[in-house]
């Protein structure tokens, strides 16, 4: 069960599967960061209805398990839309996966953004205001440069979590690495070494990413 020769034999198709994981990660991370930033701005807005709507969205995003949302967006949402619009709507599995993982991630990203922005001491803003600086400049020059440094380590570990979560998408028939492992395992009647290989492959990818994170963080600290 630790013999990786079968894994190596199927390396081309397994690599394809891993690339699908990375693709879904990139798409859902981009979506999550974008929606997360919008939700964070809404959450910090002085306009109460927008603040409430953003807070509600963030809570929903963080409360539904990815596994459940994957199945819901792939099966229930197209059905509901079809009924509503009176025409047949179909989501490709990759679109469903991107939406589901992106929505959940956006809730966490939004809170990380908010924590980063709120961690910049109020006095730093007041000092800028007292010198006659205007809000857009204060955000761009004083708040964001500090907030990004503060939130970067957390954002990076959340993204690593998101990459791991992409291994759930085979449940809606996205041909990712776990999906391929399942098929090959059935064909060859030897699933166990394939799972070991997959675990090892993810370990290597994430080790590389974590090393990059530590390196970047250290670099930012020094600057």
């Amino acid at each position, binding site marked *: 069960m630790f013999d990786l020769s079968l894994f190596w034999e199927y390396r081309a198709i397994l690599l394809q599967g891993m690339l699908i994981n990375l693709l879904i990660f990139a798409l859902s991370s981009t979506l999550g960061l974008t929606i997360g930033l919008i939700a964070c701005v809404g959450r910090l807005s002085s306009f109460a209805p927008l603040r409430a709507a953003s807070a509600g969205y963030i809570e929903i995003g963080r409360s539904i398990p990815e596994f459940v949302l994957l199945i819901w967006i792939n099966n229930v949402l197209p059905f509901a839309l079809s009924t509503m619009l009176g025409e047949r709507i179909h989501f490709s599995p990759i679109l469903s996966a991107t939406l589901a993982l992106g929505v959940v991630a956006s809730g966490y990203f939004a809170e990380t953004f908010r924590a980063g922005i709120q961690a910049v*001491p109020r*006095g*730093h803003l*007041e*000092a*800028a*205001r*007292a*010198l*006659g*600086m*205007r*809000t857009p*400049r204060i955000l761009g*020059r*004083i708040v964001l*440069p*500090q907030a990004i*440094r503060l939130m970067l380590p957390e954002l990076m570990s959340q993204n690593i979590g998101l990459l791991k979560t992409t291994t759930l998408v085979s449940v809606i028939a996205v041909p990712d690495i776990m999906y391929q492992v399942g098929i090959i395992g059935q064909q060859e009647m030897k699933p166990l070494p394939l799972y070991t290989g997959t675990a090892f492959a993810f370990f290597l990818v994430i080790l590389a990413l974590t090393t990059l994170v530590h390196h970047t963080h250290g670099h930012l600290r020094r600057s």
Partner: protein
Amino acid sequence: MNTTLTAVEGERPCDTMGADPSVAIRVVGLKKSFGDVAVLHGISFDLPRGQVLSIIGASGSGKSTLLRCLNYLERPSAGAIWIAGHQLTFDANGEGARHSLSAAQIARVRAEVGMVFQQFNLWPHMTVVQNVMEALIQVRKLNSKEARNRAEHYLAKVNMLDAAARYPARLSGGQQQRVAIARALAMEPQIMLFDEATSSLDPELTAEVLAVMRLLARDGTTMVVVTHEMAFAREVSDRVMFLHDGLIEEDGVPSVVFSNPGSNRCRQFLSKFLG
């Protein structure tokens, strides 16, 4: 106090002050509430140009709030302020505040009024010289070379030029505060506000910051200083104001306020400091 100076809408640069160009700050009927809590109950005073005014009083007496209203870091609830040739005017009719000033107008006033904070508030992601240059570039629109020259001039003035390339976290509290003073001075404001500038420093560091403030006072800078440093207030100010519960309880030259105050509360307050 000139009672004809009731609140008028909008900003009228120099308009009313024009009659009396020797006045740097005129405050009329200034009130400020935070929700239901009234902090300032109606403050009125004139401060002539070139004078140093110290505001003293117990915690919660409203002295920091008064100072922060002068550059609109707190929005006054009612009353009128003329400062640095600009008018910040608020509804005095008791119908709630009308804030007719645009963000641009407020920013223009603030650029003429320097402020130094208790917590220094230097920006940690910028070096000392970048801290001083930032508003010169963003607000005064100097190019980077001019801004650097001016920043270095003022850093030299507070004896911090050697630390120009360092980050604030590497400096002592007193050094940080001197940089913060240089940052405000470099804007060449008409008026300087000090909000308990030495309250978070130990005595030795307090002395170096007070030395810089003394220097400014000697140069004829118009200053409003909220402070607990009674010796400084007595020695450097042209005028001392004692605030109690959001009202001016005592207002006069230091020799009178410190030696023979008319108000009992002021006498009690001072006895805690002067023994």
